[in-house]
């Protein structure tokens, strides 16, 4: 059974010029203990989806349609208090930019312990001990429990964020570009830590990134997003070896590979269309190598091909991958 099922989710940002369709009819699901990658360029709606899973969309943003079924319940129907009980306890998030994600005037111990006290109703000493264990677990050391955020480096702060996110042993962990902006060695260490914690706590993870290699190494399935819509939803290895959507394949050939022959990197010409007044038809049409007449007229439906799904007119008459 799917732990999380997002169905036909639409999130619009209401602006003077009209609604910006940041997320438009997105569907995907995650099985328990699965790691799902969410990939796409900036502004494609990845972070908006991450925030919506905790119901953090605030005006001018608005969830205009669809449902988010977590463990059998549509969280969009939950009361504010019911939602609060899920946050941190069942669904946790680690976001980009840990620099300001920690409160500067509280010790990291307090910031871990307060969540444990809130959800597990334990006394202060127990919570404090568990906060120490968490710090030990993420490789910081229990002796730093009374340190303030400014006394840590960027990578260490992100470790603290991970310690907080896993402190209540959540089922679903959302990682929204957790390693962006850190140097590669620290990135590597954090990925290792995340993988360890996933095995230890049997976490289900949504991993948001724009870095293909990170997704390739860590995810079971990948959802490729473009301009607020799902372009392709596939298992990781098939996506890399045989991308279906022209955007997926463009994305992969724009990324250098360490192995194999050195190939010329291709950039994708053009930029994503306006989300306020999108052109009719496929939003990728203007940048697509395989563009056809129908692409500019009709929005492509999702086609199922070998347990993968792709939103592209190329697959209208064929069950076989054509790119």
């Amino acid at each position, binding site marked *: 059974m799917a732990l999380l099922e997002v169905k036909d989710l639409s999130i619009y940002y209401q602006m003077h010029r009209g609604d910006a369709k940041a997320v438009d009819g997105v569907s995907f699901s995650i099985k328990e203990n699965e790691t799902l990658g969410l990939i796409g360029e900036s502004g494609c709606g990845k972070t908006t989806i991450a925030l919506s899973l905790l119901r953090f969309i605030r005006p001018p943003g608005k969830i205009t349609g669809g449902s988010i079924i977590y463990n059998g319940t549509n969280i969009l129907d939950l009361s504010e208090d019911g939602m609060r009980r899920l946050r941190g306890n069942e669904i946790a998030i680690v976001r980009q930019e840990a620099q300001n994600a920690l409160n500067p005037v509280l010790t990291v111990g307090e910031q871990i312990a307060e*969540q444990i006290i809130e959800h597990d109703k334990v006394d202060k000493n127990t919570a404090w001990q568990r906060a120490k264990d968490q710090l030990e677990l993420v490789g910081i050391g229990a002796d730093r429990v009374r340190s303030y955020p400014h006394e840590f480096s960027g990578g260490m702060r992100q470790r603290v964020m991970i310690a907080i996110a896993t402190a209540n042993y959540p089922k679903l962990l959302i990682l929204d570009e957790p390693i962006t902006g850190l140097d590669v060695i620290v990135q590597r260490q954090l990925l290792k830590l995340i993988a360890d914690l996933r095995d230890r706590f049997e976490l289900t993870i949504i991993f948001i990134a724009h870095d293909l290699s990170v997704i390739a190494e860590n995810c079971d399935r990948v959802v490729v997003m473009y301009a607020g819509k799902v372009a392709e939803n596939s298992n990781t290895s098939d996506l890399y070896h045989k991308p279906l959507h022209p955007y997926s394949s463009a994305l992969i050939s724009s990324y250098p590979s360490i192995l194999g022959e050195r190939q010329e990197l291709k950039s994708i010409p053009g930029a994503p269309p306006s989300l306020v007044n999108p052109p009719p038809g496929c939003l990728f049409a203007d940048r697509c190598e395989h563009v056809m007449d129908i692409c500019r007229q009709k929005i492509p439906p999702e086609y199922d091909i070998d347990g993968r799904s792709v939103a592209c007119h190329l697959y209208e008459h064929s069950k076989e991958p054509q790119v």
Partner: protein
Amino acid sequence: MRNFLIRKVIASIVTLYAIVTANFVIFRMAPGDPIRMMFRDPRVSAEQLAEQTEKFGLSGSLWDQYLAYMGNLLQGDLGLSFWQKRPVIDVIAERIPQTLMLVLTALALAVLIGTFFGALAGWKSGKKTDSIILSTSLTLYSIPSFAMGIVLLMVFAYILTIFPLGGIRTPASGFTGIRSVLDVLWHMILPAFSIILWYVGEYILLTRSSMLDVLGQDYILTARAKGLRERLIRKRHALRNALLPVITITGVNLGFAVAGIIEAETVFSWPGVGRLIYDAVLKRDYPLLQGVFLVFAAAIILANFVIDLIYSFVDPRIRVGE
């Protein structure tokens, strides 16, 4: 912590020294001969004038006067008041308690009321509560405290006659014990309010904007993502950070409070240091003015020292600077 303290103390002493020197120079630069002004009678002999000049520490070169002034200062001697013919230090000392009572009460209440409503407005930003608080505080903030004082005086003391017109005690009442304390408080309400209302406006605006700033910070989203209750987020995460600029501005306000005190004390005939400044200016009592300025400067430096200390306890990032 000890280094931090020592550094602050040294900085305070240097500042005070600079102020004392400037204070000395400014009054020596003022035009006219104060001794001649005091003794305009032509029958006063040159000898007597010289004697008076000596008595008020105005003889000799500027440098000699400066040394004498500093020497006296170190012994707690601020000179003689031209007007009251008494040591300046005595004149000021008997006014200080009344001013402290008025200012500290007013500022403390203003901070409490202002931060409470400011935080509330910031938290409820865009809602009706916010717009009511915001427009009220803008109005209060735009009315100068002397104008507010006169209006309060007219409405509550003259028309409604609920509060006294001025002073600190009911004359010849013979009140003792608790009655006399209550009598003083009763006299203090209007002058205190003329100061409070103005500062409340400022503190509301400041706390509100600081709160809005903090609520947009990443760590508030983190706190929400932890599933904490709103009340806890507001108190522990938002308000604590939002109060940092409030503490800073309170230090500055203690300085600006001087102007407010002069206005309020003069309008309400409150026998404090502010009223004393007003009188000293009218009487051209330079030594007294010089003394009062010095006392105010010392008070502001002391206040800022205390604020720095408080700040270092509230914000852990400051402590690292040591």
